[in-house]
């Protein structure tokens, strides 16, 4: 029930905002409401496509197939798809119940298992973005200030290479050099039995994964910052600030940086949300027991309940980062008004 109340309250608040708010907040609220609609349709499509597939039975000598069929029947897997579909939404909205694991984590509720895995995924991404922000900003600012000089060329070329090379290549390089040759880290991360999640050892064992993810994020952040700041630096108000008597450093820190941050900040948040969805392969390589790993396992053993819950998670991630990016684009060029008539 709580889920219903929360969602309906959210919708009411959003609707009120849309009604009384300004045009920008109206746009944002509209986007968020559309996000719910999109999410609903995507989940519907996925649910129907998944239910059209034959239900896999666990092939095990110890398990009686008849018994398992009886269990599936009790869980309603043999009912018509539309009935199952309504039950699915009923369970999700009223109890936040995503069903039981069938092939993967058999007979354990799906959502708690996923919540157990979530901290790993978030931590690895959070660490890598926390490392990437200062380095990316510093390189970006430096490149923008030295625009078209050799320093800028070196940074831009490096950034180009680092954004192009796939993340798993970094993972292999990190594993080969830091883990195998230098033996600084283990190849895979420690398990919870050895050390708690928030501990120094766990952090150290996550470092290879964090570095492998961090290369790409740092490079992209450098690129945004350089592009944004170098555009701001050519603005007329920068000339005005200098004419007023500000030193170059003052003008940059008080005017240029602030203005470019308006765009860079949402980018950073969007990037954070984006890499949570994109670290599947890194989780696989370093054996991080996060959501990505569960997703790949669920696909390979065809556990449909996990598949649905993970689809929900990744879709929400994608929608949220999309909205943030769109909003930040609106800041970049307000002259482009999306949705206007011919």
């Amino acid at each position: 029930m709580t889920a219903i109340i929360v969602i309906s309250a959210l919708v009411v608040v959003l609707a009120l905002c849309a009604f009384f708010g300004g045009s920008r907040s109206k746009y944002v609220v509209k986007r968020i409401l559309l996000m719910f609609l999109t999410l609903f349709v995507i989940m519907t499509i996925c649910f129907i496509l998944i239910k059209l597939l034959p239900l896999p039975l666990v092939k095990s000598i110890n398990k009686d197939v008849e018994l398992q069929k009886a269990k599936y029947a009790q869980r309603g897997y043999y009912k018509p798809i539309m009935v199952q579909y309504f039950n699915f939404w009923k369970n999700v909205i009223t109890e936040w119940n995503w069903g039981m694991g069938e092939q993967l984590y058999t007979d354990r509720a799906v959502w708690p298992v996923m919540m157990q895995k979530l901290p790993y995924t978030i931590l690895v991404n959070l660490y890598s973005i926390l490392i990437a922000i200062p380095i990316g900003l510093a390189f970006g600012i430096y490149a923008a200030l030295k625009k078209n000089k050799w320093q800028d060329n070196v940074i831009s070329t490096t950034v180009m290479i680092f954004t192009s090379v796939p993340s798993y290549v970094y993972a292999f390089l990190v594993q080969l050099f830091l883990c195998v040759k230098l033996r600084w880290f283990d190849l895979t991360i420690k398990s919870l039995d050895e050390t708690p999640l928030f501990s120094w050892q766990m952090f150290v064992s996550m470092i290879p994964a964090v570095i492998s993810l961090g290369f790409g994020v740092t490079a992209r952040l450098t690129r945004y910052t350089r592009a944004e700041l170098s555009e701001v630096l050519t603005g007329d108000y920068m000339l005005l600030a200098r004419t007023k008597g500000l030193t170059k450093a003052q003008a940059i820190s008080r005017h240029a940086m602030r203005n470019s941050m308006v765009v860079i900040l949402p980018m950073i948040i969007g990037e954070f949300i984006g890499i949570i969805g994109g670290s599947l392969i890194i989780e696989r390589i370093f054996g991080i027991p996060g959501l990505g790993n569960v997703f790949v396992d669920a696909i390979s053993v065809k556990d449909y309940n996990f598949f649905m819950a993970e689809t929900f998670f990744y879709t929400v991630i994608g929608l949220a980062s999309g909205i943030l990016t769109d909003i930040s684009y609106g800041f970049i060029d307000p002259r482009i008004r999306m949705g206007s008539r011919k």
Partner: protein
Amino acid sequence: MENRNSEYPQQIPAEKFKLVQQDRHLSDVKLETKRISYFGDVWRRFKRDRSAVVASVLILILLLFSIVVPIFSYTDVSFREENYAFVLPKVSLFNGSGFWDGTKYLDSQYQGSYDYYRALGLESGMDPIVSEVKTDTDADGETRYAFRVDTYYEPGYEVKVLPAQEYESLLAYQQETGIQVFYPIPKTYNINFNGFKKGNIWYKLDVTEVDQDGNLIDYEQNYRDNPLDQNAKKAYQTALENTSGKAVLDEDGNVIPNYLRTSEPIDDALPEEKQRYPKDYYPEDAQRIAGDDGTYVYALKVQGGYRVRINIYNDYVKRYNHEPSFVFGTNVYGQDIFACLAYGGRLSFILAISVSLINFVIGACYGSIEGYFGGATDMIMERISDILGYMPFIVVATLFKLHLQEKVGPIWSLLFAFVLTGWIGIAARVRMQFYRFKGHEYVLAARTLGASDRRLIFKHIFPNSLGTIITGSILAIPGVIFSESMLSYLKIIDLETSGLTSIGTMLSNGQPYLSTYPHIILFPALFISILEISFNLFGNGLRDAFNPTLRGAEN
């Protein structure tokens, strides 16, 4: 400053005025001056960008590699030589240099390992030790050896049962060419050594051990002294199985051959069969190796054919008419990485280019309609593309795989998955361009002059977006290649069962051996990195060429 206007005549005679248009259609009249074509202009600007030109040359080289190698190479994806698994990269140009010549450096090897490698080359002259042998004494007073080993000679020999037909054909080949394929069978052919191939232990093994009290135990002697003692027999066999490879040496320091002989019982480890001599089959016409006194056994007749000991190198030459030499080495299955890379690259190119072309067409049409008409049309179409676009790609790929893979195969299901969501980016670019340009004065002018919607879309507004969507399609290629490699790396799409390979498959096959055989992963990783960098540089160059005002905006 003088008034320049004064140079012109103030009065223009009335007869010089003439109406330009009366009945003619004027919305699109060609300029009369000679002009540089749009693409000519783009090409001129593109040529100036050196990095983009270099990138396109690189792409061409990789493309040629992917097309030419599968045509001319005798190895392909189905080529699997398990005897040559984990062979290191070799380019014959570098022979003997120690770099890229298929050799590996082994250091602090014990006596047994040294004896093993030393003996391996003695019969055929294919000496796996290609460098000087350095010796050293470790803390326990044992001699340690360091030397370089040719991995192509390392497989050595294999004891196996050949069907009669195959045996005859190999025998014929051996007699015809004089290349020795069959080698004498050692007495220990039925011992399963720990860590050694049974074909490669052909010399007399040192099966002595020093116990805690410092006494020397010779298991072989013990067994010969008490041939009926089961424990002694067992101890002897265990000692053989767990041998370190150490050899018994004669006075000159050479290993002593331990071949089956026609004059001796077949296996002196088994006393109850003492009377069985290997005369069941004995090829009189066998081509004998040096040092054979005529009693060595080259084949044993067994059920289903002949048990023989073949030289793996020469057998390979016979079967493929090529000496084994793999430019990028081989992987765990003994697949040629060079050829697999070409096949995988070809798959990536075909997939990426066809996805781009299809997405180009769909995206251009969809985006034009959306952007030009706007309003409710745009709203509805945008919702549809939103829904498709926000479906996580991995989910789409999985659903297509689960539903279609069995019907149309993995490549088609992958192609459908890419096409289903891939055009959205292009459509969004086109739509954006339409919003940007449709309010411009020239469009208004053209509409005023009577141009139809279709004409406005395709003749006036769409060409403006041509540059961005060509760039967009090219810049989408590295994404497709990456996604494909990721899906095959995660084994979400399975190409191997259909006899295909891709870069992701090769990477995931090589990952367990990253620490021991990094070359398996190195070349595919290098290939895909160069490909991605080149496509990005090429795409950026194209973008700058098509739209000079955006120069350097995003790189």
